[in-house]
């Protein structure tokens, strides 16, 4: 039992740091994935927006789901939620606490992806290049084009090699403008996320501290109880197997002894 106690002590004290570690690794993985990803804007009028916004919003959603999948406690939450009531009451506050703490950790990698994408600027440049204010930034002396032609020309802004609207609006000017907007959005997003995290963390002791301590204790308890039960079952299975095998060998040796006598 001493060995079990040490193992459980380690798991319990390190569970939070283990979860935080996974969270940090996923955030770094998300930044690394973005830098490894080869962004290729299609430079076509309707496709640009779909591609740019898709790259901005779809991977965070996948990372969020992955955050839940990689979290060991999701099955514990599901089990506690779906079990029949029986003799033990169900506490909704505990379920809410477990879900909130998992959701908070799962939000970090998507937030990192969105921040890195916005601060880099390629997605917004691709998605909104057709909305650049040509009247203010472009050359006023250029003859006006039809809407469709204008959009076709502006859609090629992210692709410098095929851009042919240098007289309409300089490529660098447009890209600088879009990137400035994107980075401003990115920093605002970072500020918003840190402010929200700060508020969530600091308002809790002001309002619901007693309920929080209770939920945290019982969610730890459920987790430990499940682990201890699994360990006890494993021990039981080991002993059961040992007894069965010993009986088998004894049976075999009696059979062999009986056969030798004859």
């Amino acid at each position, binding site marked *: 039992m001493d060995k079990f106690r040490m193992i459980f*002590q380690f798991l319990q004290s390190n569970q939070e740091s283990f979860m935080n570690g996974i969270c940090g690794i996923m955030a770094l993985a998300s930044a690394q994935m973005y830098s490894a990803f080869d962004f290729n804007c299609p430079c076509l009028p309707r496709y640009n927006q779909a591609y740019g916004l898709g790259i901005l919003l779809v991977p965070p959603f996948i990372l969020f789901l992955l955050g839940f999948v990689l979290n060991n406690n999701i099955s514990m939450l599901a089990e506690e939620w779906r079990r*029949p009531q029986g003799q033990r009451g169900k506490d909704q506050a505990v379920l809410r606490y477990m879900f909130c703490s998992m959701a908070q950790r799962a939000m970090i990698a998507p937030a990192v992806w969105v921040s890195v994408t916005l601060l880099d600027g390629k997605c917004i440049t691709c998605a909104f290049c057709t909305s650049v204010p040509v009247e203010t930034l472009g050359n006023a002396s250029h003859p006006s084009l039809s809407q469709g032609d204008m959009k076709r020309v502006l859609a090629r802004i992210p692709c410098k090699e095929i851009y042919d609207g240098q007289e309409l609006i300089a490529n660098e000017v447009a890209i600088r403008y879009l990137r400035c907007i994107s980075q401003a959005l990115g*920093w605002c997003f970072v500020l918003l996320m840190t402010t929200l995290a700060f508020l969530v963390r600091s308002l809790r002791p002001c309002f619901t501290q007693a309920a929080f301590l209770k939920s945290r204790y019982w969610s730890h308890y459920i987790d430990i109880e499940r682990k*201890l039960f699994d360990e006890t079952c494993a021990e*039981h299975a080991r002993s059961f197997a040992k007894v069965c095998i010993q009986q088998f060998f004894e049976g075999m040796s009696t059979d062999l002894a009986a056969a030798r006598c004859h």
Partner: protein
Amino acid sequence: MDRFRMIFQYFQSNSESVMNGICGLLALASVKIYTCFDFSCPCLPRYNMAYGLGIMFVPPVALFLCSLILNRQSLVMLEEWRRPQGRRKKDLAVIRYLCSSIMQRAMVAPVVWIIVSLLDGKCLICAFSGSVDPENFVGFANASPVQVQQLLAKVPCKDDELMRNNTSRKAVSRYLRCWSQALGWSILLILIVAAFLARWLRPCFNQATLLQARHWSNYIDIEQKIFEETCCEHSRLFAHKCILHFFESMRQEIKLHSFSLPREGEGAEGEDDLLQGITGQDQVNKLLKMWYYEKPPL
């Protein structure tokens, strides 16, 4: 008890060093983020100042909030501040001490960002290129006011077609960078002198109160950590008892319902208490089913 003593000593010695470590890591992260960040000034008249000053001041705010979030002591301080008085008096000096120590550590990363951006110079060049006096620079002295504003706004962009070989652009850029670096070094000097004075003069004022506040703030921190540790230990023992009780009640139920005794006699004696009298496949299945469908009351 020995284990508890080791844990106490660990928390005692490492609480300050853990926080200092986090503070240092955030400062390094702040420098790294600044160097990785691709600064691109928009080079447009009104946008320059907003962008330049935004990059100089918005990330420090985010870093400050991040430091507060990552610092465990901020939670301890808030809990101590908001708790109902109860039987333990509240000492405002302790809360003030905690608050000031948290703030000091939280200010390091933002200050590092601001100083690095001033020493680098790009933010200030971008923000104030439109505000220099064009009379002082030969290339801009003879243009109309509107044109001057447009040209000055493009100074931070070296690759712009208008600015590529313009010597006055380099002059404006050097001038602004000089101011930026002077400001950066001055701020650094002032901060270091202030920190030095604060640390050197502190023993002259209220040393006894300070020692008391530091002791009790340390105490509150450790007390909370030990409470959490004890709760974990308690929940582990509680779970252990609960499971043993469950196995025992299952054994009794099986004994009641089946007439044949479990075959414990032939197994090794040491395995008995582990098997708990559950020695058949259907018995194990029943146990597992009962565990899911009817967990024992707490």
